[in-house]
């Protein structure tokens, strides 16, 4: 806890993202962008958390984010992603008589996909001025978040508790697949894909439940965990250490989930066949070239061990957004504070 720095920034933070560093350098990320919301003038700001050589244990003033630059933004910032080129597409999301909020954006250079409260999925290209493709009426309820599964496939979650898979290679406005929880139709607010295994997806919903899905299977989620007592706003797999998952929520907490399997053999030797039976059973150590099953899908609860730790000192106002890169975690809250932790145990 000692290594977490808070800075009050006079704007409620709705989205926060690290600027990506190339994985070849062992550098820690030091620049992040924030978007504000609920202000009369909202801003997208760039901040730097500079490194001054060694980081000393008790030095609190190092790592205080410094503002680099700001840019005015119309309306609340609801989606943020780093790109190298900026463009402006006006009124891409709209209702018949009004503009509709765009709720999520994701990019896989050079393509950008956005989703909004009008239920549209729109595809842009960085160098293209106009809209590349729109899937009108993709959803009759609000789409809250979107993520890339493969280069041509995206996954969206909506306020009716459904995950929809869209394939851009197909024409037409129908999703390729729909997955949902049976029972209550609880809105899902966030979705993230496992960095190495494209079929594993984590979602968080209005009731604070964390669900892990296997997109190849049919509609049921693989596991459900009660994570928070209020809406979960963001879920992120750690990009280089996917056994770690981070979630943040309206109840003011940020949880760090660590998946450690209690078995003797190291995880890279644990394998299993890529069939539906094996992925639900215990992970059996098999040598040779088997495809690796993720520890997230291990079925036997005695072998899979999930630990959650609180990352923030106390819970007060909702945490809206978080981002993690390397050992650095940054999050923004409705208390107009940014928390930076440069020593996350991953």
């Amino acid at each position, binding site marked *: 806890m000692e290594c977490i720095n808070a800075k*009050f*920034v*006079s*704007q*409620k933070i*709705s989205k926060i993202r690290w600027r990506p560093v190339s994985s070849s350098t062992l550098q820690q990320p030091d620049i992040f962008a924030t978007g504000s*919301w*609920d*202000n*009369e003038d909202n801003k997208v700001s760039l901040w730097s958390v500079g490194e001054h050589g060694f980081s000393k244990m008790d030095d609190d003033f190092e790592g205080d984010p410094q503002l680099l630059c700001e840019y005015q933004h119309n*309306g*609340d910032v*609801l989606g943020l992603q780093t790109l190298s080129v900026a463009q402006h597409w006006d009124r891409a999301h709209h*209702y*018949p*008589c*009004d503009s*509709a*909020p765009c*709720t999520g954006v994701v990019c896989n250079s050079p393509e950008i996909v956005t989703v909004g*409260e*009008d*239920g549209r999925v729109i595809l842009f290209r960085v160098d293209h001025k106009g809209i590349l493709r729109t899937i009108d*009426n993709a*959803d*009759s*309820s*609000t789409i809250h978040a979107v993520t890339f599964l493969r280069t041509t496939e995206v996954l969206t979650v*909506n*306020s*009716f508790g*459904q995950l*929809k898979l869209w394939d851009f290679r197909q024409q037409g406005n129908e*999703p390729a697949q*729909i997955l*949902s929880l*049976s*029972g*209550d*139709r609880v*809105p899902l607010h966030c979705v993230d894909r496992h960095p190495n295994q494209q079929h594993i997806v984590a979602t968080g919903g*209005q009731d604070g439940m964390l669900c892990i899905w296997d997109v190849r299977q049919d509609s049921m989620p693989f596991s459900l965990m009660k994570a928070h007592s*209020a*809406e979960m706003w963001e879920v992120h797999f750690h990009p280089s250490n996917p056994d770690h998952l981070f979630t943040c929520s*309206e109840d003011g907490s940020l949880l760090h989930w660590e998946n450690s399997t209690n078995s003797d053999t190291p995880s890279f030797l644990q394998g299993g066949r890529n069939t539906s039976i094996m992925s639900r059973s215990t992970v059996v150590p098999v040598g040779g070239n088997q495809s690796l099953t993720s520890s997230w899908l291990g079925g036997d609860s005695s072998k899979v061990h999930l630990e959650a730790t609180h990352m923030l000192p*106390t819970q*007060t*106002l*909702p945490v809206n957004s978080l981002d993690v890169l390397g050992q650095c975690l940054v999050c923004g809250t*409705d*208390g*107009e*504070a940014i928390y930076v932790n440069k020593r996350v145990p991953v």
Partner: protein
Amino acid sequence: MGEVDVDPIITLIPGIDSGQRHLGFAWGPGDLLTYETQYKSQGAGSVGQACPFVHVVRKDEDIYSPILRKLFNESHYIFVGLQRIKEEVPSKNKKPQFISISKNYRSVIRACMEELQQAAVSTHDTTLATQYGNQVSILLAVELIWNLCEVLFIEAAPAGALLRHLLDWVRLHKADVDEKAQEVLQSESPVQHQAYWDVVVCYVLQGRMEEAAQMLMKQASQQPAARAAYKLMDTLLTKMPVYSPGGTQTQTEFDVRWRQWHQECNRCLEDGSFASYSQLELICRILVGDEDTLLAQRERLSTWYHFLVTRLLYCHPIVKPTELHYYAQASMDMFLDARSGPEPLDSILLAAFEFDIHQVIKDCSIALNNWWFVAHLTDLLDHCKLLQSHNLHFGSNLREFLLLEYASGLFTHHSLWQLAVDYFDHCPEFGRVYLELQIERVPLDTEHKAVKVLRICEQRQMAEQVRSICKIMAKKALRNSRLGSALSWSIRAKDAAFATLISERFLQEYCSHGTFSDLDLIDNLGSAMLLSDRLTFLGKYREFHKLYGEKRFAEGARLLLSLMTAKIAPRNFWMTLLTDALPLLEQKQVIFSAEQTYELMRCLEELTADKAAQDADRPLQEDDIEATKVELLRLALARNLALAIVKEGTIEV
């Protein structure tokens, strides 16, 4: 103590000439709406065109200042932490905690002040710079008052220790002597520096004996002839007894020693040991506590409360808290110019020295334009159990009244309303009511914000507000033809009536377009179907279509019939259902059994009987289509019945 007189400030509204027409106004929660009325002022000549604008006048600009916003957020954090301190530990043991919380508040104020100071220096805009400068001086005063309240009320040190704290208080707020000292020390010849004696005397006035002695040593080394005098002064300075609470000496012992020292200083003066060195003599007179000398140092003291503390230091070091106000009043009278009355700040400080907490709070409320300071200070003092609870006519007690006022002011801000929620939570009597009224008026532009507001209401079991907010969002969604969104809002509010409305819309669309829109929604209703009858019907009807599409005619037929007989389907839809039954009746194989056909016929009869009763006056043309439909149905039903009876009557051999 009378009320502090402050003249009302006149604000000119641009575009409105108050000399020409009367001004109309309406109060809002934190601001004022003004507009130009039709009524001419008396004696006005030709009146020009009326101003078409409505102006919003805000009294409190501070909440819109980006730097001060940090003050509100950080103090909110401290406030919530304070409320969570457990009640079981008795107040006495919590004193160090309260003191540290008070220090936290003050450090937040100081941080804000520094930032404002930097901004004032670096900005090019002169109005902005003056504004920042004003805010800095207000924050300075606020911190001064808070610090004094912390010393007198929360720390509540007894005689002896009290003076130490007061000295610290003064030193903290007169930091310019350190700057000057730096300047002097860094100059080539400190002794020759023009501010040298300034620094030394200021150190003595603040009771910083060691530093004064060190400075004097520089002078001593320069003037070997005066060595004796400087040595004597050094002794006097360093030998001054200092009371340490919790030390081995009692107050009486200290008193005795202090009197001895005081007599020693007096002797030095009378002996004339410093006769040839005017500055040293001055210092000695200060040590003796000579009033006239102290008054003569008006410039260096700069404030009456500095004068007070210095006087106490050199005349009455073991001043009791109860005696404080005599000295305070006397000091103020002596120091201040008799002609100009006391400033608001002076009256507040005097009230503090008199231990009149209520007067302090009252005066601060009037003098400041924002409830932040009084609300937080009163809350802290209340936790220290220092406020007598007397019930006010509004807001139950003083603490709650101030917190409610502060939080209501916050609610008018487009962004800080979220902080106000926590303040209302900690007002036991009226907090909930205020929150219920205010939370409904937060503008909801995006679903994201609506979800947050809803979560706040749900956590506090404000069912009515939840319903009303969900209804607003659902209506908005309906207006934009987002039926799925509207439905998910009704599900959240468990609003059966609205769900029925939405289902009607779906059914209407089906009737007009012939197909369902938003199949993904209807197909996956799940348990939400049970929210309203109409919704259940919609789900089941869609199921029928699916069964038909999969050619599972028998099941489809059963479902269709049950929809009518179980009265799930609304009456006006029966015709459509029966028309849907037509293709099933026309099939080669018999799908409806005889029983079922009888049922269908009965439904048809019910329907036509109703119709006949209702449309007695209707012209005949409209009935043509209806009549044809009914005839077709009757024919189909009859044929089906015949086939069914035959089929059921046949025995397989």
